[in-house]
């Protein structure tokens, strides 16, 4: 059980930490997506940033991090705009519009990528795009500051993103809450719901892009959806949900690592499996609880309205 820790403590620590940073940052943003019923937009954006990465490389002729970042962010925003355009300008339903937008962009990305590979100047492992390899994170040359070794740069970057997400939620808690739960009320309070919508999309793109580079799209997508569902299953109050999300993130990163060592498989994939298993446990638990509620003739928790504390202003 402790074998991976005793064998190489620092590597294992960084893998778990990286997994935790990604999972927590995604999960926190995901809570708001879940409330807005936009859980699958994360999936769409994570696929469609691929052409952004490749185009940014073609234009700037370098694979530097900030270049990839700009390209991916632009592609993410473009996806959101295309989805809205198709949805507004035609009678195609939003779900179909999401599907059309991201698959087309992804296809474009794969085509561009394979053409670049043909010229031999560029290589992104196509599999890496999908599931990355979190185990390589500790092998990066560590960032050095004033002679102190701080750790792998991508993990530090992810930590900064996580801190930024937490800070944003803390500062704009009320606005995010109201615009997510009741856009009508938000508008009547004079809030610009459009700005918050695009702000959230921007944050989403930011989180996915920074996670994507080192751990692949699948972990990011799963962590946008699974931890918030886990938290929503346990609590109806948003603050508690956010806290539960972070706990779930830590637990699934830790369990996922052990799972991956045990099964000898991809760590990112194992973390997703661990997160899903945690949700299944809670799901079954809530079913059992519901049956007991039913016996005591208490109201079905499903039919109760979600109560929010903190929205009173």
């Amino acid at each position, binding site marked *: 059980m402790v074998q991976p820790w005793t064998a190489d403590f620092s590597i294992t620590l960084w893998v778990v930490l990286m997994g935790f940073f990604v999972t927590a940052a995604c999960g926190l943003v995901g809570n708001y997506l879940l409330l807005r019923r936009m859980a699958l937009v994360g*999936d769409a954006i994570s696929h469609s940033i691929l052409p952004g990465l490749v185009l940014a490389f073609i234009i700037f002729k370098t694979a530097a991090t900030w270049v990839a970042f700009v390209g991916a962010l632009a592609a993410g925003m473009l996806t959101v705009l295309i989805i809205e355009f198709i949805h507004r300008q035609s009678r195609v339903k939003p779900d179909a519009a999401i599907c059309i937008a991201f698959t087309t962009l992804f296809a*474009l990305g794969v085509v561009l990528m394979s053409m670049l590979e043909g010229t031999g100047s560029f290589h992104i492992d196509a599999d890496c795009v999908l599931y990355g390899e979190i185990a390589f994170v500790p092998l990066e040359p560590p960032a050095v500051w004033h002679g102190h070794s701080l750790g792998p740069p991508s993990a530090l970057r992810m930590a900064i993103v996580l801190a930024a997400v937490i800070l944003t939620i803390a500062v704009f808690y009320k606005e995010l809450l109201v615009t997510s739960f009741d856009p009508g009320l938000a508008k009547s309070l004079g809030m610009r719901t459009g700005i918050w919508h695009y702000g959230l999309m921007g944050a989403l793109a930011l989180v996915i892009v920074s996670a994507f580079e080192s751990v692949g799209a699948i972990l990011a997508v799963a962590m946008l959806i699974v931890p918030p569902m886990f938290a929503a299953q346990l609590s109806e109050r948003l603050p508690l949900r956010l806290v539960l999300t972070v706990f779930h993130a830590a637990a699934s990163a830790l369990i996922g690592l052990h799972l991956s060592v045990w*099964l*000898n498989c*991809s760590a990112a994939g194992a973390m997703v499996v661990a997160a899903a298993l945690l949700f299944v446990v809670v799901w079954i638990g809530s079913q059992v609880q519901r049956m007991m509620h039913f016996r005591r003739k208490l109201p079905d928790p499903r039919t109760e309205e979600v109560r929010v504390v903190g929205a009173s202003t």
Partner: protein
Amino acid sequence: MKFPGIVIVTIVAGIALLAPEIAVAARINELSDSTFLDRTVRFFTFRDPSLRNALMGSMLLGICCGLMGAFLVVRKLSLLGDALSHAVLPGVALGFLWNMSKDPVAIFVGATLVGLLGAATVQLLRATTRHKEDAALGFVLASFFGVGICMFTMIQNLPGGNKSGLDKFMFGQAAALGRSDVILLAIVTALALCAVMVFYKEYAITSFDAGFARSLGMPVQIFHYSLMLLLAFAIVSSLQAVGVVLVSAMLVIPAAAAFLLTDRLGKMLILSAVFGMVSGGTGAFFSFVGRNLPTGPFMVLAAAAVFAVSLFFGPRHGIFSRWWRLRSRSARISRENTLKAIYHVLEDEEFETDQVSGRELAERRRETLEEAENELNTLRRHHYVTLSSDGGSASLTPEGWQRACEIVRNHRLWELYLTNAAHIAADHVHEDAEKIEHILGEETVRMLEKRLNYARRDPHGRLIPGLEDIQFAAGRHTVPSRATGFGSATN
């Protein structure tokens, strides 16, 4: 309406017959030449057997996915295709683990079973938690895909077994399609076609109005699950050629393009299948010409091009067509407003002349002389007025006279109707009438006249032009020296 599946059957049969007819074995040395033109020629002469498999497979896949996708789109389940195509990944891995080889049948069975499990999980999540559709789909997509990734990486680390080509399930490679894959695709396509043709009515009703179908005593759930089964079949058999990520595109994009073009399910199914087939063929072509580039992305881009064309240029719902209609309508309304202004000018002069100068029109409409002259020129182009030789004044042609009378009549009738029938104050009715005057049809006008007892005057006391006045223009080319209140002279 008879289900026009016969058309699709003909196409499928055509493809099936075409390939063996042109069967000429490729020689090994031909595989080395590789200019673009060469490969294009080779594509269209079907000389490579692997190409024949790839092309047939891609086109069959397009038909099959197009048919199933049409139902997904009308049922608003588009993302279910996406979720299921990701969710079948563990099934592929299981099928591979069965005997450590890429056995199409084992993979097919494994993936179908896991796909159905995924669909059932979505249903279960929605039934037992308060999570919405999108969260349920997202959960299945992500967690199943995660399991699949784990199993794939485990397989990569296992010793032995022929693991090559397993990564093709991600992005698809039609060139890797074997004969058995194509046969599998053909069977699935035939099955989908038969099911849709036999149960066309049932699928249509359950898709559009499940409540109504239930009230007719139809087993709605059975039809839903049979559709899910067919969907899983379509996804699994297409995986090899388009890959996990892009199957959903082949399901949704051709169907959405067809959805924009027609309102009939039957037509939509045909269009969707044809679009899918064309995209499949195009994808196979580019993949072949580009020397074994992944097929899936090219198919999707071809389908997206079709979608973009129907999004912008679709005859009824296209953005461009709608813009064009809007433009021509606002042009017509502006012409009619000018005609109305000319009528007002003439009326103020009690129809003593039939000439309206640009200046009078400009004063009436409160605009510059230049604008007024432009408007008169526009009317001249539509043969509503004739201009005097110096271009300074205009007189109405019979057509112009008739249209002007109609517009003024519509306006005043409507004002009267609003004051009499709806009891709106006389000074509030003008705005409304300004809009409706361009829309009222003859039939509505007859009804209004009847209802208002063929009244002569509008609420402001002005005379309403009658049918006689409009017909008056047909006989004579100039306005009479004293056109009356339009029929009122006799009264």
